[in-house]
């Protein structure tokens, strides 16, 4: 049986367990994946969005992992918040959707989350734009001279 997070609602069953133990399970998986990554370089993603974690479970997990040295925000198709936890190589990735609700939430085990890296297609397009800008600038400089 699974419990959807509902503790914020007045009709939520009061007796429903706030902490289900799911956070412990996720933490154990993170530990195993991190060990694997450190040894083999195999990156991994643990998708939290659809997991039956209660609000309390999520808070507990977040607190255990804590915040490390790096925090990133992305403004692309809405807002995203990403941070490295206090465990190097363990990243928390949170994308917001309509009305600032959390659309997806995951833990990535990698040297940097995929979405933080620049995509080759974006870089090619950027190179074209930048070249055009340079050409434009040099024509203007020549004209002014």
């Amino acid at each position, binding site marked *: 049986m699974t*419990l959807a997070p509902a503790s914020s609602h007045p009709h*939520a069953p009061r007796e*429903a367990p706030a902490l289900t133990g799911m956070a412990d399970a996720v933490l154990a998986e993170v530990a195993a994946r991190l060990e694997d990554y450190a040894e083999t370089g195999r990156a991994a993603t643990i*998708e939290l969005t659809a997991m039956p974690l209660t609000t309390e479970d999520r808070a507990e997990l977040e607190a255990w992992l804590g915040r490390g040295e790096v925090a990133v925000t992305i403004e692309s198709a809405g807002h995203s918040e990403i941070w490295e936890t206090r465990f190097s190589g363990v990243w928390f990735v949170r994308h917001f959707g309509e009305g600032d609700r959390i659309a997806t939430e995951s833990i990535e085990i990698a040297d940097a989350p995929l*979405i933080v890296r620049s*995509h080759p297609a974006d870089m090619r397009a950027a190179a074209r734009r930048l070249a055009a800008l340079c050409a434009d600038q040099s024509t203007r400089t020549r004209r002014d001279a």
Partner: protein
Amino acid sequence: MQRSQTLGEILDSRGVSRRAFLKYASYVSALMALPAGSAAAMAEGLAAARRQSVIWLSFQECTGCTESLTRSFSPTLESLIFDFISLDYHHTLQAASGEAAEKARETAMAENKGKYIVVVDGAVSTKDGGLYSTIAGVANVDMLRASVKDALAVIAVGTCAAFGGIPKARPNPTGAAPVDEIVTDKPVINIPGCPPIPEAMAGVISYLVSFGKLPELDDLRRPKAFFGETIHDRCYRRPFYERGLFADGFDDAGARQGYCLYKVGCKGPVTYNSCATLKWNGGVSFPIQSGHGCLGCSEPDFWDQGGFYRPLSTSLRDLGPALAGAAVAGAALGAGAAWASRRHQAAYVKEQAASEGGKK
């Protein structure tokens, strides 16, 4: 905008980066519970795809399905789906009307032969040659047959298109039929619901566009990702159900405690859909969370199941022993509930009589 451009190129020219694709793909793969790592593959697939031509046919329907998909999306993550498709025909939303509209449909069919998707909302009238529902003088059934001829796939959106829905409810005067009774030689995907969950529609279309194949379907052709579990499986009132704590009415102490709504007619145990997890209106709530039982709107013939407020007491065979046990307990308790409500009614009548008497 050229049809030959990829989605990656089209969006790049508008300053949308590949990060947006990746973000959207993470969102859809989380919705559909795709294996970890699918997001990157989906993002690449989407960026390399052409804009998907969609012909949307509205037959015997109420426009609620269109309303559900287009509900006030702000320009955020969820609305990216509208950049991935080219809605070439949709008579509620398109600017063209009359002959120009029908021409747009024919052009899209010719230009995207074998590649376009037909989305249908509404049931198809078949009685007397389908004359009960026509568009531009053409019976829906004929327009459907002609439109799917060169389609890649057909998506029946909403319970009416998927199962006949309300037009097919007894006595079904127009001979309303579901899409898959008419379309037998093309892949049909059913996304039932009255209306269907918008995320399910967006998820299925995105999956088709990026991977070029159908998602996994169940025996009623519903995508398993959204219809793999019942409402009851993921209902937050389930702990009350397990302990046999039921509301007997919508205003009693049990209802106020948030008890299970089984006895006031909840159809959650036999309804496959994702309302309990995805919820509605941007994740705000869903019927059970708002205090009303599930009507079972995404199941075949939900309108003719003997009453929305009558407890599910029949066909316990399919429900498994735990549920059948509680259902029987529910039925036994039901007699008490009927007595309680009669007493409630009697008290009310007496009160009314007293106040009437007082006035005289």
